[in-house]
């Protein structure tokens, strides 16, 4: 064990004296983290808000909705006088989106039940074409603000019954509905009446399936505030730190080839050390370097940018597993070629696609579903997922075991494969 440690210390020394590796392991991930973090909105301890301009054309008839929208997490609203003004703001990039509240908007929110299919929309959303990613999110937030209003009213039986009565009346007058549609909506209104009545009953007070809270959650569970990154750096740091692991793996893989070519590996083999010692020493050095680099990067993120540490124990576990995984991959990289250039080039060719689908470039959180499925084949994904699990996904230990065990499986498999190939090559 002492011999392995001696070897590892030597390799770590060589590693920290190699400026180029340090660049890939520390500077490059840091720049990525800062760049992506700033690009997706920056930090300040709070997620950057989407700037939205609102045009209220009801003449003051949407105060409830506007109030809820203003307090919605994640967006910052101001108002414009006319639709044209708002459009110009978005067009010029001053605002990300506009929300138009049309004159026939019903602040109570119940009109949606009585709406006929061909009725015009009462709220319109216009998003900067270059920011399509935000469209879905804004729609969600607007819907949330709408439904929250609905929920408020439902907890107030008198108001509720007034509303349902109003809806029933309009249903009766609606001409574009089929009888079946009308029937089902009428019975829904009856059911709602019953619900709000039973809520008034102290005996069943605890049963409140339609409280405001429940209502909001059912609409938008993905935005549970406790489960989202507090700052964009919470997202950008884990995805950038994997590049640090990758840099370590490449550095130690090329170091191995350098030793093989320079003859120092042969020199080690004529010492009392065995091949196992030498490989274990390399592995240990790569593992420690990965841990150290990720620790430094996260530490910097936490101190300077307020990146959340989340659950420290789980975070350490995730870093250990990720570092082990990339140590295994290092072993495979080291046998890709016979020269340093071949190994460095081959490693990037092998790892680049994995990094791209695995969230090293596009954050997992912003991936379309098909890419998210593909990402399951990338070690980058599991390394990031593990870190995110500790930082902001609030993983339990059991949830954490999944990414951890995948990482460890890759670690063992890749290390074994690398050793096997190098053994076959020079017995």
């Amino acid at each position: 064990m002492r011999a392995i440690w001696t070897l590892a210390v030597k390799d770590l020394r060589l590693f920290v004296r190699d400026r180029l590796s340090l660049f890939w392991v520390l500077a490059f991930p840091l720049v990525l983290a800062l760049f992506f973090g700033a690009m997706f909105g920056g930090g300040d301890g709070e997620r950057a808000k989407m700037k939205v301009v609102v045009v209220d054309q009801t003449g003051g008839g949407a105060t409830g909705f506007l109030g809820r929208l203003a307090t919605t997490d994640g967006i910052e609203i101001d108002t414009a006088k006319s639709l044209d003004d708002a459009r110009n703001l978005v067009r010029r990039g001053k605002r990300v989106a506009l929300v138009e509240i049309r004159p026939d908007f019903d602040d109570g929110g119940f009109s949606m039940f009585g709406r006929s299919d061909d009725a015009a929309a009462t709220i319109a959303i216009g998003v900067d074409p270059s920011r399509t990613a935000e469209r879905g999110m804004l729609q969600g937030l607007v819907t949330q603000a709408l439904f929250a209003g609905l929920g408020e009213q439902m907890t107030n039986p008198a108001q509720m019954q007034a509303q349902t009565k109003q809806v029933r009346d309009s249903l009766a007058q609606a001409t574009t509905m089929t009888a079946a549609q009308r029937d089902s909506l009428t019975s829904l209104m009856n059911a709602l009446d019953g619900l709000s009545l039973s809520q008034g009953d102290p005996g069943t007070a605890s049963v409140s399936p339609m409280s405001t809270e429940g209502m909001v959650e059912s609409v938008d569970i993905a935005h549970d505030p406790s489960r989202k990154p507090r700052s964009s750096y919470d997202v950008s740091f884990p995805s950038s730190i994997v590049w640090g692991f990758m840099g370590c793996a490449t550095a130690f893989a090329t170091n191995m080839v350098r030793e093989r070519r320079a003859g120092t590996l042969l020199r080690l083999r004529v010492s009392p050390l065995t091949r196992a010692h030498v490989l274990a020493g390399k592995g240990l050095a790569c593992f420690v370097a990965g841990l150290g680099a990720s620790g430094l990067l996260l530490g910097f993120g936490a101190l300077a940018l307020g990146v959340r540490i989340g659950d420290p124990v789980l975070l350490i576990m995730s870093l250990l597993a990720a570092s082990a995984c990339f140590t295994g991959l290092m072993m495979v990289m080291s046998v890709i070629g016979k020269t340093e250039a071949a190994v460095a080039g081959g490693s990037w060719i092998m790892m680049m696609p994995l990094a791209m689908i695995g969230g090293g470039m596009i954050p997992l959180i912003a991936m379309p579903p098909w890419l998210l499925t593909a990402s399951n084949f990338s070690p980058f994904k599991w390394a990031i997922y593990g870190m995110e699990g500790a930082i902001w996904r609030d993983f339990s230990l059991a949830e954490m075991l999944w990414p951890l065990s995948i990482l460890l499986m890759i670690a063992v498999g890749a290390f074994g494969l690398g050793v096997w190939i190098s053994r076959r090559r020079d017995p």
Partner: protein
Amino acid sequence: MLEARNLVKRYGDLTAVDGVSFTIERGESFGLLGPNGAGKSTTIHMLVGALAPDGGQVLIDGDQSPSQAATRRNIGVAPQDLAIYEELSAEENLAFFGRIYGLSGKKLATRVDWGLEFAGLAQRRRDRAETFSGGMKRRLNLACAAVHEPKILVCDEPTVGVDPQSRNHIFESIEALGAQGCTLLYTTHYMEEAARLCARVAIVDHGKLLALGTVDDLIAEHGGTPIVEAELACVPPDPTALPGTLEGHTLRVETEDPLPTVEQLGRTGIEIRRLRIDRPDLERVFLQLTGRRLRD
């Protein structure tokens, strides 16, 4: 102490080492002399366990094989291709190689200091090896091989690319080790080195061991007689009165005893422009054995 028995190593069609056998006694200094590509390094790699022979075997201390880690602990190797870490300082290199042979603590510290003196690098102990000259690196390479006080020290061409001063330093260091009882195996293609450092020399070429013995024995056996070569100012009227053979103005005399021959020449009264006595040496031995010179 160290025995090579019928060692064979093949690379494809090429037989790099072809049935080489010799025995090195404890405390002896033994040289492998041969031109480039003779198979010296390949032989050495098999002796120290870096390369598995295709045939034959290596026995160390009677019955041990260099494939065992414990056996390798007693051997120090200074490979022909420098095996030091450029990014580490002289001190760190020595300490690293000391550690992997099990040294630690005070013992390690004294051996590192010894190594720095040995390599003449005490002044530059903290400088990285990459800042050293070729000769300094060679010396460090050798010091790293000897830092753990091995019973057998194997030096593969420790003087290539080294200036005469550094070379002298290396010779003295190696001689000092030999004086302390270290068994020495030395390869070179410089016959002067073999003659100076090695009690016994094996001459190898094309993977084969051509001759083995003390330097004197080899010269006596294969070196032929000394030659006196004189360039005469004018050819005498009766050349047959002269010893040896005359070719133009140059007279060549093969003789066991050069001095009386020179005196005899002096007595003839012929003016001699230039006189050379060519004593047999390992170079001549090699020429004799292979028909080629060691270096061409």
